[in-house]
C-alpha cells in the first residue's frame, strides 16, 4: 500500500545528494572512517546532526526535536540554508 504521508514519514531526497550507503563508501574510500560503516550508522549521524539544528524550531513550534529533525520539509529547508550558507548567500526564504 502506498505511503500517503510521505511528508511526515519519508526522507527528503536531493538532486546532487547521496544515499546513506554511498556516503558510507565515500567516507571509507577517503579514509575518513577506518572501516566501512553501516548505512544505518550514517543515517544516525545524519539525524543526530539534524536534531541539533532542529532545536530552535522545536522550541518555537512545540514539537519534539526528534519529530522536527525527521520531517522531510525541515530537511529540505536545512539543505537550502546550508547551501546558501556554503555559496555565501545571505537571504533565505523558509
Amino acid at each position: 500500500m502506498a505511503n500517503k504521508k510521505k511528508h511526515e514519514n519519508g526522507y527528503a531526497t536531493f538532486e546532487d545528494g547521496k544515499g546513506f550507503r554511498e556516503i558510507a563508501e565515500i567516507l571509507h574510500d577517503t579514509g575518513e572512517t577506518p572501516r566501512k560503516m553501516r548505512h544505518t550508522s550514517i543515517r544516525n549521524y545524519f539525524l543526530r546532526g539534524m536534531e541539533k539544528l532542529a532545536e530552535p524550531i522545536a522550541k518555537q513550534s512545540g514539537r519534539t526535536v526528534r519529530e522536527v529533525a525527521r520531517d522531510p520539509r525541515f530537511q529540505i529547508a536545512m539543505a537550502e540554508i546550508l547551501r546558501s550558507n556554503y555559496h555565501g548567500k545571505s537571504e533565505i526564504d523558509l
Partner: protein
Amino acid sequence: MSTDLYYKHVGKFDLLTKQQEYDLAAKAANGCTRSRHLMVEHNLRLALHIARQYSKTKCPMEELIAEANVGLCKAVEKFDHTKGFRFSTYATWWIKQAILRYISRSTTVKFASGARNKIYKINIARKNYYEEFGCYPEDTELAHLLDMDIRELSELRCANQWPINLDQPINSEAGRTYGDLIADDTLPDQSERLDHEQIIQSIKAKLTDLKPLEERVMRLRFGITDDANDTTKFPQSRSNQ
C-alpha cells in the same frame, strides 16, 4: 429653471378647497386635461414638501422634486373623488413611492424596493431611538421593535453601508487616502518575517555544534559540494572555530 425660481413658481398656487378639489377631480376623471393640469399645479407644494423630507439621502434635490412630481401626476390619474378622501391624503403615498423608487435606483448597491423600504424603516427607527434615548439600539432590540428577523435586519444593515471612494483623502485633507489604510495581503507579515530571520540565525549558530563527521554526512546527503571527495567544511561551522 433654478431651484429658487421653482420654489417661487410653486408658491404662486394656492391650496384647493375640498369643493374645488372635488370639482376638478370629477372633470379630470371625465378626461379634462386642463383640470388635471390644475390639480397637479395646485399640489406642487405638497410634492415639494415631501421631497424635502428626503433631502438627507444624498440625492440631488432637483431629482427628488422631479420624481415627486411624477408621483403626483400618477396620483391625479388614479384619484377616485367619489370615495370622499382629500387628494393630498391619497397623493402623499404615490409621491413617497416615486421618491423611494428613485432613491433605490440611484444608489451604488441596488436593492429590491421591498428591501429598500425596510432599510428606510430601520434607519428611521434608529434615528428615533437615538433622539429618545441618546444612543443607538442593538440589532436585537431593533429587530424586536420593528418585528423583524434579527438575521434579516443584520444583513440589511450590513448591505446599507455607504460606499466611499478609496482615493478620497481622509478628513478632506490632502495626504493619506482611505486606500492607504487597507492592508496589503500579498506582502509577508513583518513580525513573521522577523521570526523567520531569528530562526535562521539561531540555526546558523547551531552549525558550530555539529561534529565533523555529522557535518560531512549532512553535506554529502544534501549534495553541497561539487566533488564528493572534497572535505572542506561548512563556512560557518567548524571552519569558524
